[in-house]
């Protein structure tokens, strides 16, 4: 049986080698210990040997090729009547995992990366106008006591080191105010239980977002009746595989609207806003078994609905099968999260850093709506915008949602 000769590992710090010479030609006989090739490493040229008698076979790489440790370099043909090879054959060509476990994977991809979009939130969003409160200098012990007793540190003057509020200051304040309040429920303990890696990655990204990005939130109910009817008509003419989901209307509408709102499409980097030169919409897609990712639909404003739908189906399939490229996860310039059929009315997203905005859609449903002077049943969808207050404000955000609503009134133009 034909065997392969693989790029050998010659040191724990060797990751790859460059072929600089074949010392044997195809058809030549190789004895155990013979040099088969010379490879260039970061330590210089090293002759590499074969460990079994064989006939030199077809080369699989060319002079000058640099290949990772474990990659096949040449075929080796067995000698007549040769014994079977050693049980410890070198590992397979790619994605090889040594028993010792290599630190760095050789390929990229194949791993769902941290999620982009936010999980739904039911809590009331913070006021868009909330200004940062000044941080009072207080000792950790004083902060903890203040929290337990429900005391406001802002009302106190510190007597501790560098004017910090200390336990003594709190006790004095309580003595002035009378009896202390009963202690509220204790802080939940732990918090770093056995989260899966994905969960931890989501936790890290979302914690960073909530810690660093001053979000403001806006919501807007949009009449979706015309669009829903248009969608129903259009899908009625098509086979199931060709049908459009309302989600692609949202993606396209968001992308078109963003053309006029560059401050919502881009990145916060090194303390500054960097507008993106294209509109790549990250689509939040749930992963079976937990977690979610938001890979990009590139140039979403310039593709027609069928192309967007095909792209979305492809992404969903690859999220499920694990075939996303790393770049697809880092390319989005904005995120859209839609809870589709799950039946909630609205979702308030958390921005995925370093993006500056996330648009959320609840489930379209029939609700009473005032049309003219009459209350009518209409299909409504609530769109929300969470945006980075460092780079835009509620006024522009509101105009964005209004623009989005307008685009959704003319589905045929999408």
């Amino acid at each position, binding site marked *: 049986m034909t065997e392969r000769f*693989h790029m*050998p*590992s*010659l*040191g*724990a*710090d*060797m990751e790859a080698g460059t072929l600089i010479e074949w010392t044997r030609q195809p058809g030549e006989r190789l004895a155990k*210990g013979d040099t088969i090739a010379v490879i260039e*490493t970061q*330590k*210089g*040229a*090293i*002759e*590499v*040997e074969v*460990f079994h008698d064989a006939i030199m076979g077809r080369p699989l790489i060319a002079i000058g090729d640099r290949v990772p*440790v*474990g990659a096949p370099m040449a075929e080796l043909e067995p000698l007549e009547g040769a014994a079977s090879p*050693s*049980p*410890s*054959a*070198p*590992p397979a060509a790619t994605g*090889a995992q*040594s*028993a*010792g476990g*290599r630190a760095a994977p050789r390929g990229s991809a194949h791993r769902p990366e941290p999620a982009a979009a936010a999980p739904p939130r039911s809590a009331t969003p913070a006021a868009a106008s909330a200004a940062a409160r000044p941080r009072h200098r207080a000792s950790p012990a004083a902060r903890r006591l203040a929290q337990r007793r429900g005391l406001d540190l802002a009302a106190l003057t510190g007597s501790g080191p560098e004017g910090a509020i200390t336990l003594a200051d709190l006790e004095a304040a309580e003595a002035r105010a009378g009896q202390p309040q009963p202690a509220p429920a204790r802080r939940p303990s732990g918090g770093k239980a056995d989260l899966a890696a994905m969960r931890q990655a989501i936790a890290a990204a979302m914690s960073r977002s909530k810690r660093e990005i001053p979000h403001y939130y806006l919501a807007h109910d949009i009449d979706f009746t015309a669009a829903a009817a248009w969608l129903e008509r259009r899908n009625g003419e098509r086979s199931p595989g060709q049908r459009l989901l309302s989600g692609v209307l949202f993606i396209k509408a968001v992308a078109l609207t963003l053309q006029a709102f560059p401050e919502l499409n881009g990145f916060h980097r090194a303390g500054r806003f960097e507008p993106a030169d294209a509109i790549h919409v990250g689509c939040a897609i749930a992963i079976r078994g937990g977690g979610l990712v938001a890979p990009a639909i590139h140039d979403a404003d310039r593709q027609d609905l069928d192309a967007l739908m095909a792209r979305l189906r492809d992404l969903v399939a690859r999220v499920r099968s694990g075939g996303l490229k790393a770049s697809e996860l880092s390319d989005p310039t904005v995120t859209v999260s839609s809870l589709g059929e799950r039946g909630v009315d609205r979702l308030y997203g958390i921005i995925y850093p370093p993006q500056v905005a996330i648009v959320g859609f609840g489930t379209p449903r029939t609700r009473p709506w005032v049309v003219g002077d009459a209350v009518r049943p209409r299909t409504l969808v609530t769109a929300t915008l969470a945006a980075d207050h460092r780079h835009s404000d509620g006024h522009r955000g509101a105009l964005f949602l209004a623009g989005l609503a307008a685009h959704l009134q003319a589905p045929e133009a999408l």
Partner: protein
Amino acid sequence: MTDAHPPDNTPQAHKLHLSRTHALHLLREMLRIRAFEERCAELYTAEKIRGFLHLYSGEEAIAVGIMQGLAPTDAVVATYREHGHALARGLPMDRLMAEMYGKETGVSRGRGGSMHLFDAERRFYGGSAIVGAGIPLAVGLALADRMQARTQVTACFFGEGAVAEGAFHESLNLAALWQLPVLFVCENNRYAMGTALERSESETDIARKAAGYQMPAVALDGMDVIAVEAAAREAIAEIRNGGGPRFLECRTYRFRAHSMFDPQLYRDKAEVAQWKQQGPIVRFRRWLEAAGMLDADTAGQLDAEIAQALAAAVDFAEGSDWEPVADLTRDVAG
């Protein structure tokens, strides 16, 4: 003197009554080491063995010859190129291979790897990866024997590179000053990594340096297993009788690179080829054949036995478990 070329004399059977059984034992021991080392090289390229790997091929006669003179109660302190010492001392091949892999069944529970083989039962005090750092330990082990009135000997192996370390000089001085039962065995393979002896030492006659500490010291052909065994037996008998430390400089040559990742820019291929012609195994084999002690059947049988043992050792290592990460901090004080 420093040999520019390998010696070509035949093995010296003088001073030893060499039975066929013993001669074949010596051959088997050297073959076992060579086969183990060559398999380790292969497993290293296949990433089964990681870290640094230093092979003993070419130097087998020293470990095998010296061990013949040691009793089970004697102690051995070795270097980071110590697979041969461990095998010759009787450490089981399967557990040695498991240690190469880092498995829990290894001689050091997998915690040491190639450079740190230990065995309390056989008084094998390790593989040390700090050049020269094992030498003071050997002196201390001998001091303990002396203070407890035991007649044990400690054999301490090191390379000629260690001779440049302060630990070497401090230790030889202490051992001679206190007349401790240590057999110092310098494996002079001519290169400290890539630095040739004459490029690192003002005095290249190492035995002479040892003699400067008032210690009987001889240089001998370290490619001749019989010569090594004879010298070891004589020296160990003297030491055991209270004669103080002895020093053997065994001149040898390393057939392989210093470690696996070494393009060997510092020596000629012709030099390596020339020494290989005079290797401890080929020479001894030739001599045994000429003396009528080795025929083709016996040789084939030896090779087959060793191949079988080696295959079993690899299977054992492959089949062994990794130590659970939960045990990470075991066997550490403080």
